[in-house]
């Protein structure tokens, strides 16, 4: 049942943990996710989805960065090195690679930063630096961007109260970065995604968003993680599955009114 072993499970501060899992997954793409079974018992019943934060050297496993918000993540935070869990994946489409790292504008809020690290790391030192615009609410959240700086990402932080970085919302920073030819990748709270999406649309900049939905299967069969989309402006709206059609969608495909 358990195909992965906890290598470490580090408390990053506040509700945040970084866990490394020895696990024989294959064929990862940045922005994909895994479904983790946190317990061998039947409660909690379903697997929990987590973005791939990093891929370990030699592809010996992965790291996830997670926030404790409920029972499943609570149980995860209590695991010790050597404990075993079951990992299913990699799942989902992921973010496409961009040619010019300097053209990439990552926008994240809170734990939404998780799926960007491996992507950002992969681009580091390959030409111009990508930028990460990060909206934080607590000092523990601010700490989550340190590894991005360490690999050479240009990081700009905002906090609502201005205690760290600039004061305001992440979208305030965005306007300056929305230059033609750039691409925005966004992950975070729904409100943020909508605002980012709208800003990008106004400026005619391409924008991809990574969505979240309650997931039962993670592999496109339960049809639970539906989101209303319109692949082409002329087409009829229909439901796409966040797990198998996403989690990354072109923002103009999303029927934002349906949320």
């Amino acid at each position: 049942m358990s195909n992965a072993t906890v290598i470490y499970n580090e408390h990053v501060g506040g509700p945040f943990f970084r866990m490394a899992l020895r696990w024989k997954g294959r064929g990862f793409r940045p922005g994909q996710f895994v479904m983790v079974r946190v317990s061998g018992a039947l409660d909690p019943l379903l697997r929990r989805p987590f973005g791939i934060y990093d891929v370990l050297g030699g592809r010996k496993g992965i790291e996830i960065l997670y926030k404790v918000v409920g029972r499943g993540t609570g149980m995860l935070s209590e695991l010790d090195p050597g404990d075993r869990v079951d990992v299913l994946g990699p799942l989902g489409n992921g973010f496409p690679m961009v040619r010019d790292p300097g053209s990439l504008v990552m926008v994240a809020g809170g734990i939404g930063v998780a799926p960007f690290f491996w992507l950002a790391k992969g681009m580091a030192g390959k030409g111009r630096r990508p930028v990460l615009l990060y909206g934080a609410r607590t000092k523990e959240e601010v700490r989550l961007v340190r590894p991005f700086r360490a690999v050479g990402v240009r990081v700009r932080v905002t906090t609502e109260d201005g205690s760290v970085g600039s004061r305001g919302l992440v979208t305030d920073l965005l306007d300056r970065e929305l230059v033609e030819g750039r691409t925005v990748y966004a992950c975070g709270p729904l409100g943020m995604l909508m605002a980012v999406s709208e800003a990008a649309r106004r400026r005619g900049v391409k924008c991809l968003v990574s969505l979240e939905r309650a997931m039962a299967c993670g592999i496109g069969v339960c049809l639970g993680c539906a989101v209303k989309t319109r692949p082409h402006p002329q087409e009829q709206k229909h439901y796409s599955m966040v797990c198998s059609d996403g989690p990354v969608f072109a923002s103009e495909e999303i029927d934002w009114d349906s949320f």
Partner: protein
Amino acid sequence: MGRTSFSMTASGKVALGVDIGGLKLKNPVMTASGTFGYGIEFSPYMDLNRLGAVVVKGLSLRPRDGNPAPRTIETPCGMLNAIGLQNVGVEAFIDEKLPLLRRFSTRVVANIFGETVREYSEVARRLDGARGVDAVEINISCPNVKKGGMVFGTDPVEASKVVRAVRKATGLHVMTKLSPNVTDIKVMVKAVQDAGTDSISLVNTITGMAVDVEARRAVLATTVGGLSGPAIRPVALRMVWEAAQVARVPIVGVGGIVTARDALEFIIAGATAVQVGTANFLEPDSAVKVIDGIEDYMKRHGIRDVNEIVGSLKTPGPRANPTGSAR
């Protein structure tokens, strides 16, 4: 065809083959509708040829969009779903999905539904000629638009009409899937078998609900949804056992099966086969593990043919409290 000709498994040790009213399966383990997609999605995770049968997602005459989100929520040892029967429609199934499924030596059961009796029989008729379909499973837990949205599956008269119409529309094996949301499952069993079903599967989900207390709103966009998973197993098992008391056709047990032990509970209580549903979300290869576990159990107990234990339940002498109200 004699029983032995299909009942030996690859392992050659124990006979797992079963015959559900003419539908012959290499083993008694199927996957439940709506939890296994159109089957092919699971080929990365298991050898589909191992399965007794694949039951595909419910098919309607025309494609259906399904319900708005949220559509699922976890509950203690279970989950609620309100997918709203989103599906590609019977035509797209036949054209796009079936050719892929035909590559496997596993039986294919097409789960079907409609909002009128006519729709049910139309879907069945379309499937009748489709190469690679071995049976239809009628999902009668559906709103009957002609009856003001009342569910076919809770009214024996309406249920019979559906079964009779489907029976007439197809030469395929007809399995009827019962809803557990009824006072007396035996009434439904009798109704659908009198209407000519070849086998009966039960249970579908139990209607349930969850509330987001922070927002003071129903979690599901549809307010109520269907409860599935281990939580419902004791109820499903009781209904299968009750059904087996009155059924003249074979019974297929569904509801909360995760392990071989769970499946064996149903078989011993009277089910000739079982379906694994929500467990497919926990481990995509749950059904294969169930098959392996049944084989182990049989070897451990010296049972050569799984049919020996179907309905082998010993019940104690006179029941102290014969009605089932046992508190």
